[in-house]
């Protein structure tokens, strides 16, 4: 049966290695570098816990986005989505208690995601534009609903979710872990994952294979909502308030950056959750490292940008080595 011989040139071997270990290498380099230079202030258990738990903010939101980009779509409304869900949840919590608030947050976000999905599929408005419009609308609604008053989150349960710890680990780490497990399972072990891949790589073929492309897309956008909702819960808990203007400001680009840095092709079809998670960690580890090192904050910006470009070019280097066109 195996009468087709697999031949890998050294170049290609290097490429595949890069594909598998590139991001981890970057993460370790960054971590190692700052650990050596900063010692205690960086390389200590508390700080690591802190960094990982804060990476959940981008990390969890990036799960949905990874799915979305895999299907060749795009959602830049998530920042505003986070805020709107956050303020609604928070105000619900004030009246009906934390558990309700948390549920409301996630449900609202999911519904907003669903709304995006419906616009994209039913009204046939390109995802980028739909979500661009929603970016304005959600944020505006958040302002209008709260009349620009921050909604404080005081409920102990909700506060615990973001700040408490369990088995000596910050609780957000567990939530992030859980989210990734579920997502990973959906993508690799459930038919849904195949559908996402199929739609992303060739939607016409997918629909001829009996896949309801529209439903898959709607589901993907709804999932974005769900994960953004979870992220909103944690974020709100860490901030202890939901501020319609502040919450999730610039979130969309942080998340998309993480996803792309994680090696998911914007064209759709291929992607990796592991990569996304690593990317989310890389960004936080880098930023924290630099500010702990008291790097001038202007230089920090420059460095962040440069590192981003370098990291992504490594991914390109992989494809070049493998001799594949993207």
């Amino acid at each position, binding site marked *: 049966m195996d009468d087709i011989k697999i031949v890998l040139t050294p170049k290609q071997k290097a490429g595949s290695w890069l594909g598998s270990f590139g991001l981890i290498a970057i993460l370790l380099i960054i971590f190692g570098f700052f650990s050596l230079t900063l010692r205690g202030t960086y390389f200590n258990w508390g700080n690591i816990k802190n960094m990982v738990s804060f990476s959940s903010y981008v990390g969890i939101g990036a799960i949905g986005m990874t799915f979305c980009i895999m299907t060749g779509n795009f959602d830049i409304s998530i920042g505003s989505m986070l805020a709107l869900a956050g303020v609604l949840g928070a105000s619900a919590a004030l009246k009906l208690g934390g558990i309700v608030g948390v549920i409301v947050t996630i449900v609202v976000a999911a519904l907003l995601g669903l709304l995006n999905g419906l*616009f994209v599929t039913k*009204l*046939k*408005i*390109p995802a*980028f*534009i*739909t979500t*661009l*419009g*929603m*970016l*304005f*609308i959600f*944020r*505006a*609604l958040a*302002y*209008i609903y709260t009349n*620009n008053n921050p909604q404080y989150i005081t409920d102990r349960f909700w506060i615990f979710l973001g700040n408490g710890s369990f088995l000596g680990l910050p609780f957000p780490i567990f939530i992030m872990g859980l989210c990734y497990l579920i997502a990973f399972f959906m993508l690799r072990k459930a038919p849904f994952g195949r559908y996402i891949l199929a739609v992303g790589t060739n939607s016409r073929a997918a629909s001829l294979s009996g896949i309801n492309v529209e439903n898959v897309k709607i589901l993907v956008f709804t999932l974005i909502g769900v994960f953004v909702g979870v992220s909103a819960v944690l974020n709100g808990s860490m901030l202890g308030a939901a501020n319609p203007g502040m919450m999730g400001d610039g979130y969309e*680009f942080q998340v*998309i*950056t993480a996803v*792309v*840095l994680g090696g998911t092709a*914007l064209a759709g079809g291929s992607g990796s959750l592991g990569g996304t998670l690593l990317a989310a960690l890389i960004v936080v580890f880098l930023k924290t490292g630099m500010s702990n090192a008291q790097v*001038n904050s*202007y*230089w*920090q*910006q*420059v*460095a*962040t*940008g*440069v590192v*981003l*470009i370098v990291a*992504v*070019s490594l991914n*390109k280097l992989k*494809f*070049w080595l493998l001799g594949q066109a*993207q």
Partner: protein
Amino acid sequence: MVKFLKLYEKIGIFILIVAASIFLAIVSPNFRNMDTILSIIMQGSYGAIIAFGMTFAITSGGFDLSVEAVMGLTSVIIAMLIPSLGFAGSIIIAVLASCFVGFLNGILITKVGISPLITTLSMQVILRGASLIITNGRQVVISQKSFMSIGASKAFGFLPMPIIYMAVLFAIFYIILNQTTFGRHVAASGSNEQAAKMSGLNISLIKTVVYILVAFSASIVGVIRTSQTLIGIPTMAPGFTLNVLTIAILGGTSLAGGRGNLIGTLFAGIFISMIYYGLNLLNVQIFYQMLAVGITLLFALFIDGLRMKYLETAKIKGIRV
């Protein structure tokens, strides 16, 4: 019908403008005078000019999120250099520097093959940092007051200069896109890059030039704004990029690439300014202004969607398999 729809693609946004004008003219007396209208167009010009460049980028199948940082860079370079080099010198250097940034974007996107999103997003952060480093985080006041005339004076005593710049740049960009081989090649590389490449077009070169154009247009606006405020502002126009994108898209330039619509962009620029400006005249809270922008965007694109759908079906019926 199809004829009308083709027309709509070109000037659909114009209809929105007319509608909005009528509305505003009715509700606000202040709107019914030449100065206000000119002011609105003037404030539209900043976004529109950059959106011209952005239209090129989108037509070539990408986009550029670094424009606001380019404005800042231009601003500080001018402010730092004016004392030594004078107006012309400092402006030229600043614009050239910006073009170089565009060149870098182009190289990273075409040669290294990083997605425009990441490239320009990173470039945005880098430039912000760089501008702040140049001025050490300060705003640099320009003491040569006459520099103001570049952006703030009026032609024929009534026509604000920015409008003139917008008109001129529109003409130039329009001709480039529709009349020159380069412009057509931009469309080609956005419409079907593979084919364009196979036909022997130098995609890398074309796209690089495109990103230089974007940076150039952003830089021009940077010059205008700096001259108006007489301050070198490293963090100029925070969040303006989103505005520019909105304008280009609202103008009807398809994100799929290949189809650039500069006329639409021009009108969209004015329209957006109209929303903010007009609603400010009515003291409408900013929340509702955002709401308005979002809804118009969706509405316009919804109409556009219907249009495309109609043309599609028309096409299917037209072609026999």
